[in-house]
């Protein structure tokens, strides 16, 4: 993978406040890359440093092999889709989309063709003469995309582009953005606070907290092997239980999980590395299974069974989320079960057997 953007120890200060510290990452050519984190984690600041709207206080940003120090936003091979879309309200749709071509020396008909092509790409053929301020949210989003892509930037920067849309439209646009990215082959960098959106759309995700990248990984790695409780908690739901690591022996780690007993797990299940001492283990809700009568705890003898009481039932139609208090464990665990025809939904207060797999847990030391 050839990196198109190389970030080296990027730092950003606002007065005494450090917004970014030691950001180092390579973003590959043609990659769909997401910056994910809670508000105030520095993800938008980092995007603006790449765009050239903010100067870095330390470190370097290289785009396409060239150091961007002192290169202003209007000279960088990047274009941006703003959170508010920033559609020029006094211009028509076509004038908005063609705005970046003002300094292009091509003859007018060629420019008009480029505008028509860009509009077709985002599914807005025939909207060219409309007044921009009369568009709906989804249409503004498309105009902003067409306007940014018409200059064929090396990198497209998207600052929370879907946050202003309602749920249905947002899900539709997620798919369209992904398709568009594959079609044009340009590197997309998406800033979002929505972990689901990041998982669905990205090739790789950088999870940021407090101005630092906590983990940079593919969506699957991020979900299955989060490096810290903070990351695990931010991406999806995870149940945590205290655990004591007794021995680290080559590829195997032995530990005592509160309420569940002694387990031996693979060292690969400790993404941040294992060492003897106090820690905690995490389970995703779908790695725990409620057992129905006559069922056993899974194949290969790895599955174990614990007993408990159903404390809460949250029925979602396709799924049911149970909070189950296992015997000997104070805090209830969240368990998700797919609802299948012919199978009952457990009820509040019912006793249940829960199968769990030591191979599915993640250890944080």
């Amino acid at each position, binding site marked *: 993978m050839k990196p198109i953007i190389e970030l080296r120890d990027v730092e950003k200060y606002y007065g005494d406040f450090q917004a970014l510290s030691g950001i180092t990452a390579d973003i590959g050519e043609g990659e769909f890359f997401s910056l994910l984190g809670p508000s105030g984690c520095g993800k938008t600041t980092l995007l603006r440093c790449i765009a050239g709207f903010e100067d870095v206080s330390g470190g370097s940003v290289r785009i396409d092999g060239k150091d961007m120090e002192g290169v202003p936003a209007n000279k960088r091979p990047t274009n941006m889709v703003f959170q508010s879309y*920033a559609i020029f309200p006094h211009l028509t749709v076509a004038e908005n989309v063609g705005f970046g071509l003002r300094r292009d020396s091509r003859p007018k008909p060629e420019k008009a063709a480029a505008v028509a092509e860009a509009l077709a790409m985002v599914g807005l053929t025939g909207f060219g003469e409309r007044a921009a301020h009369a568009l709906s949210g989804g249409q503004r989003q498309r105009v902003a995309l067409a306007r*940014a892509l018409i200059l064929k930037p090396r990198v497209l920067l998207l600052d929370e582009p879907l946050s202003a849309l309602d749920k249905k439209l947002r899900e539709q646009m997620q798919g369209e953005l992904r398709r568009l990215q594959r079609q044009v082959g340009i590197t997309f960098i998406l800033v979002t606070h929505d972990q689901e959106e990041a998982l669905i759309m990205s090739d790789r995700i950088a999870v940021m907290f407090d101005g630092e990248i906590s983990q940079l990984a593919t969506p699957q790695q991020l979900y299955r092997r989060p490096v810290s409780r903070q990351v695990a908690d931010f991406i999806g739901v995870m149940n945590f239980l205290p655990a004591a690591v007794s021995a680290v022996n080559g590829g195997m780690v032995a530990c005592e999980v509160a309420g569940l007993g002694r387990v031996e797990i693979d060292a690969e299940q400790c993404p941040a590395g294992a060492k003897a001492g106090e820690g905690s283990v995490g389970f995703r809700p779908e790695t725990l299974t409620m057992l129905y009568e006559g069922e056993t705890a899974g194949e290969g003898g790895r599955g174990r069974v614990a007993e408990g009481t159903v404390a809460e039932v949250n029925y979602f139609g396709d799924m049911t989320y149970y909070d189950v208090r296992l015997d000997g464990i104070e805090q209830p665990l969240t368990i998700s079960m797919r609802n299948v025809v012919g199978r009952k939904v457990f009820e509040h207060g019912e006793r249940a057997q829960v199968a769990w797999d030591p191979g599915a847990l993640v250890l944080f030391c």
Partner: protein
Amino acid sequence: MRGGTGFRVYAIVYLVFLYAPIFLLPLFAFNDSTIIAFPLSGFTTNWFKELATIPALHGAVQTSLIIAVTTSILATCLGTFAARAATRYDFPGKGPVMGFIMLPLVLPEIIVAVSLLVVLLGIGIQLSAWTVILGHVLICTPFAIAILNSAFQSLDKSLEEAAYDLGETRWSTFWLVTFPLIMPGIISSLLISFTISLDEFIIAFFLTGTEPTLPVYIWSQLRFPTKLPSIMALGTILVALSITLLMIAEYFRRKGIRKTGGKDTGGFL
């Protein structure tokens, strides 16, 4: 919410007190008598015709127009700079600086006028139309800033960034994006500054040279009772003109807010 009859009476008395004198102005301007008193004696447009025959009045109108036009342009330019700085940038001492610029809004005009006169005479500057312009710019700029502040605030900051990002320079961004979008605010600021300058009396009275402005001229004519009806006619024209200009200014201000899709946070009307 329902107010009692007490409040209704209060509101009516208030409005009568405020506007009755202004309604009397056209009444006597069309009255066929040199005495300003009831009962009215008859209808005439002679007082308006008489206005056309006074050269001193024409000179005063001309002086006032020159001063008002120059003032509105200068105040709006300065207001644009200040409003942009206030809404876009953070700099040390921003609060106090903006406060000092806005101060003439609440300072008694007589104090502004006298202190300006003292300073101007002190540094040996001859009183002329330019010294009046100086004073008027001082009191009009806060109004221009107030109007343009709201224009800049309803302008999304990322619009300018988007234009810059798409390859324009800071300068071309201003003319292609910022200026067209704050245009209604600029027109509104020009009109309000013009109106304020046109009927401002105290500063003009103190700082004017040999050529009086219109309000100063009107004041000087009040000593002659026979001139009163024609002053009433002149006043009628000025009131009509002021109301028209203010309405146009407000129309543009509201149009601007609609255009940028912002929320109306109140204006002067």
